[in-house]
């Protein structure tokens, strides 16, 4: 072994080297930790008078498998705070698509329908994509199909998780159903702590569907809430009906919008080709601070109608209907309604819409739609017209470095490896 020859070095070599080593390690680690907050968060003004943003704050998070940055965007200023996860998060930890396991407070909920045994509403956890049931409430809801159809034939249905919502800490449920169902439905307050007791509905309503041949009927699209008010979303004949209820079951107004045509439900009422046909999978955005509930009904990628309701002293009232059409062919919203990628609310006579838009290089789109660059835009509408647009510039698209839209060999299917926006909210 080669050894040191110099007596001075032999006597003192360890301490200086230890000192240099520690200085380098500490300096590098401090630099890396400081760099945690050095991502790009800039506002790019695109269009309109910025006075419409007075008093508006947008918050959200940028998440990938390894870290999460929470940001607050107010008055052209963005503040951010980054948290590094102690371990790599797996893809399904925070992914939620409407219709699947519904996150309410600290738990996830799912509804199973077992013929002859009832509806099993399960409360559980999703860890690393694995579902674990903690509690179950079984409801015997006397709603049945008008005619028992052949099981081998596809029948249109509405995801039952649309019937779940939360108000004042309690979970409520109504059974979603297309028009070809009959019986007595209701709104149920679910008590998972005393699940062995029979759950009584806080109110009931008759579906009044009598014949599959008749063109009239009632469909239940879902149940939503804002503050302590429940909003029952129904389709009756050719109208969208939104009924407000207190948590004790007392009715708080009814809003009827007609004509309002949905695919698979009342499309036969659309005597004009120009009428939009909406998808049953609507989106709901509840702004708890102002008591505003915005329901977005999408007809296709280029058009959505946003119905905004507000909770007042004694009723749930309609305050705005805004139709939004696509502004730019090369900017598209994600088609699968990924939760948290946008938020819509209404304030002081304007509709505020913050959302993630995927950027396309041509109208045909990418080979990999999911891996197209994304932009976070705030758009403000007044009486249906866009009056303001801003963009939050971030580094999220840097993660697409290895994605070549013409070369699938480098595509990585783990979306958690790519930063994306979540939990967008307008205050």
């Amino acid at each position: 072994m080669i050894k040191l020859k110099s007596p001075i070095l032999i006597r003192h070599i360890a301490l200086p080297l230890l000192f240099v080593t520690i200085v380098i390690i500490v300096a590098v680690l401090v630099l890396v930790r400081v760099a945690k907050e050095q991502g790009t968060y800039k506002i790019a003004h695109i269009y309109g008078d910025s006075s419409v943003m007075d008093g508006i704050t947008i918050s959200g998070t940028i998440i990938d498998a390894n870290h999460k940055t929470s940001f607050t965007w107010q008055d052209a200023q963005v503040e951010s705070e980054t948290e590094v996860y102690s371990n790599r998060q797996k893809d399904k930890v925070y992914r939620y698509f409407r219709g699947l396991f519904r996150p309410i407070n600290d738990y996830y909920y799912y509804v199973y329908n077992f013929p002859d045994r009832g509806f099993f509403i399960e409360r559980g956890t999703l860890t690393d994509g694995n579902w674990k049931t903690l509690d179950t409430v079984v409801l015997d809801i006397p709603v049945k199909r008008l005619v028992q159809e052949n099981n081998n034939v596809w029948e249109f249905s509405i995801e039952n998780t649309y019937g779940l919502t939360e108000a004042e800490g309690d979970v409520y449920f109504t059974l979603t159903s297309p028009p070809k169902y009959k019986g007595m439905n209701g709104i149920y307050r679910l008590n998972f702590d005393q699940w062995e007791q029979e759950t009584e509905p806080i109110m009931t309503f008759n579906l009044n569907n009598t014949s599959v041949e008749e063109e009239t009927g009632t469909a239940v699209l879902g149940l939503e809430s804002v503050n302590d008010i429940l909003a029952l979303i129904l389709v009756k004949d050719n109208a969208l009906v939104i009924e407000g209820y207190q948590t004790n079951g007392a009715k708080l107004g009814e809003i009827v919008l007609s004509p309002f045509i949905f695919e698979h439900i009342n499309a036969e009422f659309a005597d004009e080709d120009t009428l939009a046909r909406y998808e049953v999978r609507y989106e709901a955005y509840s702004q708890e601070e102002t008591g505003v509930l915005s329901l977005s009904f999408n007809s296709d990628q280029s058009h959505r109608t946003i119905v905004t309701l507000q909770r007042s002293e004694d009723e749930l009232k309609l305050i705005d209907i805004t139709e939004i059409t696509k502004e730019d062919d090369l900017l598209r919203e994600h088609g699968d309604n990924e939760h948290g990628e946008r938020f819509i609310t209404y304030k002081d006579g304007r509709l505020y819409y913050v959302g993630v838009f995927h950027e396309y290089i041509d109208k045909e789109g990418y080979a990999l739609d999911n891996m197209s660059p994304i932009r976070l835009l705030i758009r403000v509408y007044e009486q249906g017209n866009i009056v303001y647009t801003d963009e939050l510039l971030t580094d999220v698209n840097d993660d697409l470095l290895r994605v070549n839209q013409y070369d699938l060999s480098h595509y990585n299917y783990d979306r958690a490896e790519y930063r994306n926006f979540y939990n967008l909210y307008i205050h």
Partner: protein
Amino acid sequence: MKRFYRLMNAQFSEMIIGVLLLCAGLIAASWLLVSYRIKDYNIYAVHERFEDIYNASGMPIVFLLCLLGVIALFIKSFYSAYWGSKSIYTLLTLPVKREILYLSKLCSFAISMLMLLCAQLVGFIMAYCYMELKVASYSEGQFDMTNGLFLAFIRSDLMRLLWPYDFVNILSTVSIFIVIIAGVYYIVICERSQRRWGVILMVIVSWLINIVVNIRLDTIFNYDSLKIILYSATLLVISAACVWHSIVLIKKGAIA
């Protein structure tokens, strides 16, 4: 303290050249392997992220080999006292406590390990800077990863293992290195004192380290902070036991 300082420097000077060569090799390998990996990068190429390039370049294996190299250097320096002039007898007859004799060697080993870790850190940053410069030479920012060094630190499995962010994982990394240092020293002391069952303990330690690494990388076992703390505590207890028994054996003169 003065005696400990002198002894530690003397022990350390036996290994220093080899350790410095390994550190230099590790830094050079980071640069060479990463530069080889990106040799064909140009404006038309698909650009991988730095952490993926570093991983695919084979650097985790090179680091592991260097780690084994430092351990080999330590073992060689320990056994060199039994060869030729048999300086072990001189060491054992020095007018110092046997604990100081043991701790001076242990500290010199720990400093060597720390230097290797530092070299890994320097190599990682140098390789990152090299890649950044190369990409900047032919592009105008379209292949940049803003704040890329920070992202590479938190996205690379090797870096998360060696340079973790939170207390639990830092405790785990520290406990792993402490048990490696105390354990390797204990094995050679056991071997010299004819107590070969010490090897069994080290097999158990290797198995525990393997479990902890797999929990932290979330591969075979799911990540669990409590389990990591428990395993880290176990490794630290084993380290303390190794140190205690090593001192007992040296005090008895069993290693002569």
